[in-house]
């Protein structure tokens, strides 16, 4: 269960005030909103990359509002992938396990498992430099789920993909959600993604998050 309790984010002229949201365990929540409505700011605050002005963020009833990002157990896939330029794909996927001192054999097994799920086996030794947009997003997703996060935050993961890659990524996201049994918060402005993936649809408008059933 992810709960935002009267969360307020003030950033210069931009503000989100007293956001209240509950996402049940195992849900695939889609948060829609216009460009500039504060979707990414909200996601980054949940991940710990921005500080809220007030309010609380609760994950499974644990207050994580003041915890550093490293202790929140949230997998984050940013819109720009932000892969590590000097690491090959296998090391990127295992990074979350490496920093948690998971033993090499166990780490290797999990890397293979995640690579299999996201069809990355043929790319394991490559650096991000030569990968396509879809491949970059798959690696970023693999990197974010390898350490079995409590929540997976996806920031417009399909926005830079062409149509065929988008459909295959939607299938992969569904597969990840089913097999990893992870709660997902996915932000987008695509109604197609909302229809195909969301078990809970939310809309961010006028500084408020509210349930959104209009497209289903």
């Amino acid at each position, binding site marked *: 269960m992810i709960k935002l309790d009267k969360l307020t984010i003030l*950033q210069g002229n931009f503000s989100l005030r007293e956001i209240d949201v509950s996402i049940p365990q195992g849900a695939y929540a889609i948060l829609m909103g216009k460009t500039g409505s504060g979707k990414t700011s909200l996601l980054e605050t949940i991940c710990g990359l921005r500080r809220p002005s007030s309010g609380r963020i609760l994950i499974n009833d644990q207050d994580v509002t003041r915890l550093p990002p*490293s202790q929140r157990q949230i997998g*984050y896939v*940013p819109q720009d992938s932000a892969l590590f330029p000097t690491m090959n794909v296998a090391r990127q996927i295992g*990074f979350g396990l490496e*920093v948690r001192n998971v033993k090499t054999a166990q780490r290797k097994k999990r890397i293979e498992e995640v690579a299999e799920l996201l069809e990355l086996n043929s790319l394991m030794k490559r650096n991000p430099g030569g990968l396509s947009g879809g491949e970059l997003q798959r690696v970023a997703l693999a990197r974010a789920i390898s350490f079995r996060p409590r929540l997976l935050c996806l920031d417009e993961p399909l926005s830079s993909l062409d149509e065929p890659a988008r459909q295959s990524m939607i299938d992969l996201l569904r597969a990840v959600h089913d097999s990893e049994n992870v709660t997902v918060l996915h932000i987008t402005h695509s109604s197609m993604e909302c229809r195909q993936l969301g078990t809970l649809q939310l809309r961010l408008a006028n500084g408020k998050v509210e349930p959104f059933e209009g497209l289903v």
Partner: protein
Amino acid sequence: MNLLKTSMSDAPTSSTTQPPPGNRNRIFWITMSGFGVMYLGLIVAMIFADYQYANWQDFKDLLGDPTVRFSVWLSLFTCTISAILSMWVAIPTGYVLARVGRDAINSRFANQPLMRRCLRALRYVIDTLLDVPIVLPPLVVGISLLVLFQTSAGRWLDGMTNEVFAALGFPGIQGITYEIPAIILAQFTVSAAFAIRTMRDTFEQIDARPEQIATTLGASHYQAFSDVAMPQARFGCVAAFTLAWARSLGEFGPILIFAGTTQMKTEVLSTTVYLNFQMGNLKGAVAASLLLLTLAIFVLLLMRFVALAGDDDRGIMA
């Protein structure tokens, strides 16, 4: 309407007076390169004149002198130590300066305008202070160091260093002032400023976003720095080390004042050039200069090919 007609009828005429695009490109590139070629010519001419002036016998005489051989080894030793010390300071300082820049302050204190202004002003003062050793005349750096070590804190440090070196088994080194540590400190004071600038620019060019993402994956700030930022900064590190080493090798003014020029004790290659020149031995001074030049080019080229595996086509300073 008339104006339009006139300008339209003029257009083909004016284009025929200009050279064709291919020629224009060539003129552009030749003009732009011309300035660099002139400067390059000056450097090559200076080196060539030095080699013309000195002969092999001067070199043999110079290297036959045990005091010069000592100064060569002392130069190489002190330059390397001061470059290592510079990097030790430059890597963390450059990283902090790059990551706590104007944008980071603006974003972190977006809702606290007073704090934001104060921190930006502080950042500006720190940046300026760090550039002081670069803009100060070298002699002033030497005098300032000498004066610093005349204060009570400086004297205490001098005395303590004396004891530390005695305990480490170097009873010959009597503190810092007018000793080998003075050479290293004088070189370090200037070269660290250059290394910090280089490392700051390096980290500023590296996107901070992957480091932030690394922290969401469970990495501490140190792990994000060492595993994500540092591997990307390797070329910058080589450039900063090389620059610090080269600055140290050429350092002269602060060493002359703060460490003196005692033969077989604090005489480095740059002071050998000066001493030879002062004694009217121009041939010796030129031979020592050439030795300095040859050493610098050899070591810098070696470093470039070893550290960068020769895989980029820029100069010695990466």
